[in-house]
């Protein structure tokens, strides 16, 4: 359906410097594909998606749609766009029309469907997205999730062959994400060809036939959900799909600012939504770095949070050490007992750099 080769896009920044968003994109998109595009922010996911209906014309490269080059100056874009629907992050419903008029407007004027038919088909689509009872309402009176469902119905009214979803749930309150994803799941089962830029990794894993992991302005890794989420090849992909967040402190000697470490860890936990573990974490960090491993310096303290599993752990790394410090004599056994009591698991492992004691909370 789409065949993209050597697609590039660059902007001039305000200071005149050139910024390359898309460096070299190559891919094939086939009928029936449900492709989720994932990756860190600012790596060109939306830009790539928007270049597929030429809302963002590329700087160079080719995009073939059903064999025709849509980047060609003479290509009639409105023809393409009638066949390629788009759902926006910010919904972009027409605020001066009610829900039904939003849905029926484009078929009425672009496909010359008569009013009665447009209204009837519009109502059928609204029923499909669960918005039929609000057909007469103005968009401003709807919740974000409801607006996005109407936007999906509006897009479907043109009977598109492929629909581009540009972060459809990113602007939504978390409580409304579910209703939009359910509607999209229904479209997947209707065998609609879809490209979805999303941060909802679970959803991407469940519904997609293929995943594009984008980074550094290109499709960094591509594969089935099982490949990308189960056994990613590249370490960047792995870090992203696991959602590993890290915070590292190096304790060189006893002049180290332990209070600073406490506040850093507190902020980290709040940011990733595990504030209930703050108290245990701070106790463990204090007992380990200032009592149990008091005589081991330098000591690297690494706090990690893995989004995929929700695991929080704190690792204590002693460089160039070949055995576990816990088996050395003279460590404070009582303190170590307290740490074990407050944690789920204590892992002792030898790594290429030295020896690590990992405490899982």
């Amino acid at each position, binding site marked *: 359906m789409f065949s993209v080769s050597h697609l590039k896009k660059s902007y001039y920044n305000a200071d005149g410097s050139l910024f390359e968003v898309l460096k070299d994109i190559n891919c094939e998109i086939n009928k029936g594909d449900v492709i989720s595009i994932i990756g860190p922010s600012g790596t060109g996911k939306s830009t790539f998606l928007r270049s597929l*209906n030429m*809302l963002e014309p590329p700087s160079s490269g080719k995009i073939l749609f059903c064999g025709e080059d849509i980047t060609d100056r003479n290509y009639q*874009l*409105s*023809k393409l*766009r*009638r066949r390629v*629907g*788009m759902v*926006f992050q*910010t919904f*972009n*419903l*027409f*605020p*001066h*029309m*009610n829900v*039904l*008029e939003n849905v*029926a*407007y*484009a078929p*009425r*004027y*672009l496909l010359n469907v008569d*009013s*009665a038919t*447009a*209204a*009837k088909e*519009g*109502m059928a689509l609204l029923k499909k997205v669960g918005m039929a009872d609000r*057909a*007469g309402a103005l968009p401003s009176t709807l919740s974000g999730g409801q607006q996005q469902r109407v936007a999906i119905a*509006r*897009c479907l009214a*043109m009977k598109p062959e492929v629909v581009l979803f540009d972060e459809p749930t990113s602007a939504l309150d978390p409580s409304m994400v579910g209703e939009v994803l359910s509607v999209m799941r229904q479209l997947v089962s209707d065998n609609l060809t879809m490209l979805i830029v999303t941060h909802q990794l679970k959803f991407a894993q469940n519904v997609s036939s293929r995943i594009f992991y984008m980074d550094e302005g290109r499709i960094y890794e591509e594969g089935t959900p099982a490949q990308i989420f189960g056994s990613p090849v590249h370490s960047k992909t792995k870090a992203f799909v696991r959602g590993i967040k890290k915070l590292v402190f190096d304790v060189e000697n006893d002049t180290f600012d332990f209070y600073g470490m406490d506040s850093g860890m507190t902020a980290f936990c709040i940011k990733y939504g595990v504030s209930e573990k703050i108290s245990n974490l701070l106790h463990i960090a204090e007992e380990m770095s200032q009592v149990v491993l008091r005589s081991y310096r330098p000591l690297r303290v690494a706090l990690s949070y893995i989004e995929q599993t929700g695991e929080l752990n704190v690792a204590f790394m002693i460089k160039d050490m070949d055995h576990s410090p816990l088996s050395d004599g003279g460590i404070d056994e009582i303190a170590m007992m307290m740490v074990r009591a407050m944690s789920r698991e204590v892992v002792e492992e030898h790594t290429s750099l030295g020896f690590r004691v990992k405490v899982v909370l």
Partner: protein
Amino acid sequence: MRPDIDRKFFKNTTDCLEALQKGMVDVMVEDEDVLTDEDMKRMGLKVAFKGKMDLPTAFGFKKGNTELISLFNEFLSQIRSDGTLDSIISFWSSKHVVQWEDIPKIPEVSEGMPLKVGTCAMNAPVSYVLNGTWVGMEVELVRRFAAWIGCPVEVSYFDIPSLIFGLQSGTLDMMMGSITITEERQESIDFGDVFMVKHPAYFVRDNQNAEGQGTVVNRMKGRLYQNIIHDNRWHYISDGLLETLKISFFSVILGSLLGILLCAMAGSRNKFFNGFVSLYVLLMRGIPMLVLLLFMFYVVFSGSGGKPTLVAIIAFALNFASGASGVFRSSLDSVPRGQTEAGLALGFSRLAAFFRIVLPQAVRKGLASFKGNCVTLVKNTSVVGYIAIVDLTRASDIIRSRTFDAFLPLVIISIIYLILAWAIGKILDITLKQRKAYVLRQPS
């Protein structure tokens, strides 16, 4: 002991008379023949004493226009020798109320270039409007002069600086209005021969003579009759209203079109266009409307012998365009980019997305400020009297100059302006707001 004298200058006799009656000034110095005995009795005034000073009065011409001046002087000496001049002066200076029927009708030539005469006086007996026609001592003189040289005559009302400018720019041929020859004036214009020597009179309040008769209601009835019904004076108001409407309507249409053009230029990527619009808006915002109007009339269109109404429409359209372009631009910018994108993504062309999706929303957002601009324009048109257009405001001046009633005519036209402002809002609401972009009935 001599009291200090605080001098105030009034632009016309009506305002000065009102100030005298209300006690804001104690003495009014004017030509002795400006009020009839009847007027003075009605207003409770009297002449304290007459001045001894000679005021040689003459017509003004463009400096160096010797051809017209000598013609006029020849005409003057002719009517002086045959006694016509004396009878004209005695007819108009007799201090009784002149009736329309008694005024000699001078046959007028209708063909050819008119003799354009400006007057700075709108009061009896010099030059004033009666039954919609300019009459008065000096008006009769120029009518006779025009008939003598065989051309039509056109009289219009300006203040003195505008008259002098009009002579210099060629918009006018002669100026009048009880103009006294002074050395200072002789520097910028030439005068014809003196046709009359006037003397000033010192008017003061005369409490014994004040007329206090009648109830408040009856007095009000009398004033209303004087200002509206008598001599069909409401005609001035209805004609003036029509003129105000004409200027406002065409200025809004022309100005909006120009505003659309400016708005498009401001939105373009062309740096020159952007700069031009910024400069234009800066100029129009900075120049007072009256100054722009006078500049257009005396400088830009001075040679064209221009129709004042047309000049006013152009000047107001130019001014309106700058405000309108701002309103258009900001209301278009207030429609989020996502709206255009949503339209494009559905398959609308750029043009269709603009007209079908963006524009209806922009109209809704900009309507209130556009209405405000229109109302401001209508009220601003009240300065067109400066270029001799008889609009609603100038109509009230004409009535005031006859009735010496300072306020009632102003109250009447204020009410009319107020109704106009309300009506404009309503009309714009009905034509722009009520029209929905697209209406669809829900199938039952």
